[in-house]
């Protein structure tokens, strides 16, 4: 091969930056099916996140607490503004709303059991409240969603708090899409739908249309429950500063902000990847809004969307959140994307099942198919056996316990006896993007992009 041929050979295989493999596959798929991709899980793209922040452990100017002897409180109280029965949690880590329908009944029961043992709350989802989860959850937050599937005043009365879901981090402004294969007889009954059809859920509530109406909707739920239960308002992160202010004005006790890394059972990829802002940016805007209204600490803030580790929790609390909610991390803890599952004490490989879905362990985002190889996001009775409540609860308990241990360890290192004493002063940013979004100084400097001089 002469020099010229050699160069031509490489040019001939040069890819296009604008039309790489991914975008080509997207175009081929759209042209073949006339359908956008619908999938589960959260964004695949990398966005600035809690890994881009570091905690400033104590040294000489601050005094750390002894990790293994000195106590660090994690008690968390939510809903102190109007509710006569606020929520009292042992840890500031809660389980985000995930529906029965998206998840199996075994999984819902696992969530309830683990949450109860650790003194935290779990949350219902789009399919309404199941008997299993009410029974297994000491503290259960009942979601009032646009679809109002299975929404029932008896369940409202049985709940410990009510969460009005306006949007989700994975798809602000969009409704859900549960494909027909997951509409089993039980799911169909709970949602008043024919079995096996594609369920397109509404993107907005049927009986109110804006912030002025929301004031009255919240009052309705308060009147209905005799002003006992905290009312949460959950928004997908977009114009978070204004949304949080409006939620405060509407009378929310607790505001849940879900960033773009938040997961979903099934929605269009174009939403997951292209709508919403990162959790880091949303958290800062939410705290700004509360401080602007002088409501920090009076209205509690829960942040969700890509909270995975105890370090994430510590950083979220330091930035101003009162608690976090975890969805996707919980699914991983249960065994999502694991290459094996345990049935009757025997470990079985799930590799063939992943392969049949056209994927592999570690790369799966096929929750929408209902064929979850490890039995989590399925309504198939046999697949659901792959995760029994005992094992699920145990794994989840271990995960949440680990997060809490990491959280308290880091808080002590910053000299705090209470995780809620973590503060912005305990943080620095590792990248300029994260520094600008979180409005924190770049590590080793006093520089906050957009706010101070280098």
């Amino acid at each position, binding site marked *: 091969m002469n020099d010229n041929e050699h160069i031509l050979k490489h040019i001939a295989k040069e890819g296009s930056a604008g039309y790489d493999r991914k975008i080509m596959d997207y175009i081929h798929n759209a042209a073949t099916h*006339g359908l956008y991709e619908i999938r589960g899980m959260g964004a695949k793209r990398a966005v600035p996140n809690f890994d881009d922040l570091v905690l400033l452990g104590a040294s000489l100017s601050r005094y750390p607490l002894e990790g293994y002897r000195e106590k660090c409180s994690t008690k968390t109280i939510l809903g102190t503004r109007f509710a006569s029965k606020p929520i009292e949690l042992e840890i500031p880590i809660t389980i985000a709303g995930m529906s029965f329908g998206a998840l199996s009944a075994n999984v819902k029961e696992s969530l309830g059991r683990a949450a109860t043992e650790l003194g935290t709350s779990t949350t219902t989802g789009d399919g309404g409240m199941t008997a299993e989860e009410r029974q297994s959850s000491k503290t259960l937050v009942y979601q009032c969603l646009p679809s109002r599937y299975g929404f029932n005043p*008896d369940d409202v009365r049985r709940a410990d708090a009510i969460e009005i879901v306006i949007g989700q981090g994975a798809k602000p402004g969009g409704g859900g899409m549960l494909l*027909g294969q997951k509409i089993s007889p039980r799911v169909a009954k709970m949602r008043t739908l024919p079995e096996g059809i594609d369920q397109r859920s509404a993107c907005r509530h*049927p009986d*109110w249309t804006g912030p002025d*109406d929301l004031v*009255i909707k919240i009052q*309705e739920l308060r009147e*209905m429950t005799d002003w006992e239960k905290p009312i949460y308002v959950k928004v997908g992160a977009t114009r978070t500063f204004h949304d949080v202010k409006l939620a405060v004005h509407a009378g929310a006790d607790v505001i849940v902000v879900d960033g773009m890394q938040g997961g979903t059972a099934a929605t269009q990829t174009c939403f997951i990847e292209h709508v919403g802002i990162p959790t880091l940016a949303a958290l800062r805007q939410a705290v700004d809004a509360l401080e602007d209204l002088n409501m920090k600490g009076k209205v509690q803030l829960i942040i969700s969307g890509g909270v995975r580790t105890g370090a994430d929790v510590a950083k979220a609390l330091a930035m101003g959140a009162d608690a976090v909610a975890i969805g996707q991390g919980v699914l991983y803890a249960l065994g999502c994307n694991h290459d094996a599952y345990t049935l009757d004490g025997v470990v079985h490989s799930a590799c063939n099942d992943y392969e049949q879905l056209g994927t592999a362990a570690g790369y799966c985002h096929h929750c929408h198919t209902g064929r979850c190889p490890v039995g989590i996001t399925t309504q198939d009775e046999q697949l659901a056996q792959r995760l029994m409540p005992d094992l699920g609860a145990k794994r989840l308990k271990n995960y949440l316990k680990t997060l809490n241990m990491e959280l308290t360890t880091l808080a002590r290192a910053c000299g705090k006896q209470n995780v809620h004493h973590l503060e912005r002063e305990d943080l620095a940013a590792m990248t300029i993007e994260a520094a600008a979004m979180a409005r924190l100084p770049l590590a080793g400097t006093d520089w906050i992009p957009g706010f101070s001089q280098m």
Partner: protein
Amino acid sequence: MDSMNFDLAVTPLRDLNRFLHKEAVAQGIKQVTVLHPDGAHNIAVGLNAPVAVDIEGHAGYYAAGMLKHGEVTIHGNAGTGVAENMMSGKVHVKGFASVSAGASAHGGLLVVDGDTSLRCGISLKGGDIVVGGSVGSFSGFMAQAGRMVICGNAGDALGDSLYEAVIYVRGKIKSLGADARIEDMTESDYQAVGELLAAAGYTYDPHEFKRVASAKSLYHWNADANQEY
């Protein structure tokens, strides 16, 4: 004594609702009259007992929301979301109703003697709605189960994205929504309409009504349905 009056000009709404939730049954009260409602929101929400509530005037948002067992009569007009998510019982609006009347109701009967505004019966999950007058656009949107009887006319996009709910209309339909179609009435339709009209206190002939139901062409992904899916 098995009846009581609450005058909202002097008594807070909270007292009325607390009484309906916690004391009415214990005190053997079967009928409550609400005076001077003056458009107050959330009157009798979450009523969960066989108590008759008469609202003597106009009610604001969500009157009788999430009702179970009770019977609420509004002797005036009703605001947004009257009888929203009703489970059972009966709500009768003697005047007109605003938007989203009977939204996502799972059971029970809502009767509106006058007209209703936009999105009447939106996301209906199994309740029955009888409207003496006309309904606004997008009525029955995404209605999953239950029945609507409209004695007057229907606005644009009636029954858009219907699932299994059925709508009966006596007057003109401005336009049908995606996947909705007019179907022949069967004997069981005439019977259903007759029963609902009788329960609502109307004497129209069921043979004057036409049936609107889902064409079911959007129950599964349909690439040729353009923007309708």
